[in-house]
């Protein structure tokens, strides 16, 4: 294998530290889809809440475990994030931060911030910018991740998202897109790691 090819493989392998997540993306797609279908067909209730909390946490933790344990199996390599990408990520974090802040201001203004019944909702609202900054690295992950956190907030109050509402469609499309994308990234990772190992001393 020539050096140029080896360098390409090294750069591609490093992408699994940030923008590629293989089966982590598939897991996110499945979590997004199941939560949306649970809201649609089961409505608000304990089962929907459990599925929403459980699958959101499973995805966020699972994708990072996969990233660290499986997709760095040949050693750790961090992808280069160019300036434009960093700016985009910062923009999304600030955007979700402003939304959270706005919601908190509304709750403070109408005096509901002290009502314990709203605290689970506010907890997930507060998590939004933190989760965006720490866990959501691509546009599709952002769409599904923010939707899942919004679902955690709304479902914790006994409400439920329904597929008939048009604003859930990007969530549905994002989830459906993540499933095959993750599988394709995973297959590519297996090829990359096999090719990289071929030249190892």
């Amino acid at each position: 294998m020539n050096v140029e090819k080896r360098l390409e493989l090294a750069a591609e392998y490093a992408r699994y530290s940030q923008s590629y997540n293989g089966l982590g993306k598939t897991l996110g797609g499945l979590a997004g889809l199941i939560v949306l279908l649970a809201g649609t067909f089961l409505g608000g209730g304990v089962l929907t809440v459990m599925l929403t909390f459980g699958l959101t946490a499973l995805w966020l933790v699972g994708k990072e475990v996969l990233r660290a344990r499986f997709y760095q199996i040949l050693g750790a390599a961090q992808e280069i994030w160019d300036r434009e990408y960093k700016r985009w990520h910062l923009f999304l974090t600030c955007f979700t931060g402003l939304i959270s802040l706005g919601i908190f201001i509304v709750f403070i203004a109408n005096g509901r911030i002290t009502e314990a019944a709203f605290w689970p909702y506010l907890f997930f609202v507060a998590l939004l910018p933190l989760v965006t900054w720490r866990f959501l690295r691509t546009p599709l992950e952002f769409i599904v991740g923010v939707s899942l956190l919004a679902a955690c907030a709304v479902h914790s109050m006994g409400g439920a998202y329904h597929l008939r509402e048009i604003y859930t469609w990007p969530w549905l499309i994002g989830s459906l897109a993540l499933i095959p994308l993750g599988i394709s990234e995973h297959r590519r990772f297996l090829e990359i790691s096999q090719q990289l190992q071929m030249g190892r001393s």
Partner: protein
Amino acid sequence: MADDESFRYSEIQHALDINRIVHEPARLVVLAVLSKVDWADFNFLLTATGLTKGNLSRQASKLEEAGYIEITKFFKGKLPATRYRITALGKQALETYWKQMRDLQQSIQEDIQP
């Protein structure tokens, strides 16, 4: 005739000016791999370069001495780990090296064409 000789002399000088630290194949491949990532650990560099452990450690130390890479040693839990990152000086040295090699290749090709 004199112009032709001085041209050849400058070409030879140009070839001799090539950065010997970067020119060594093992160091070149380490620098090239690090230029493609933000940072990498020892295990990944071993895999990506195909070097032996001893050779990689030796060449990385030389690159660090030249200021071309940064080596950070730390503990990952209880296990020691090493992280490598190319510096701005290293990136510049690598770019200059590629440019010199391209120029040299071009001048040789021009020379041998009838």
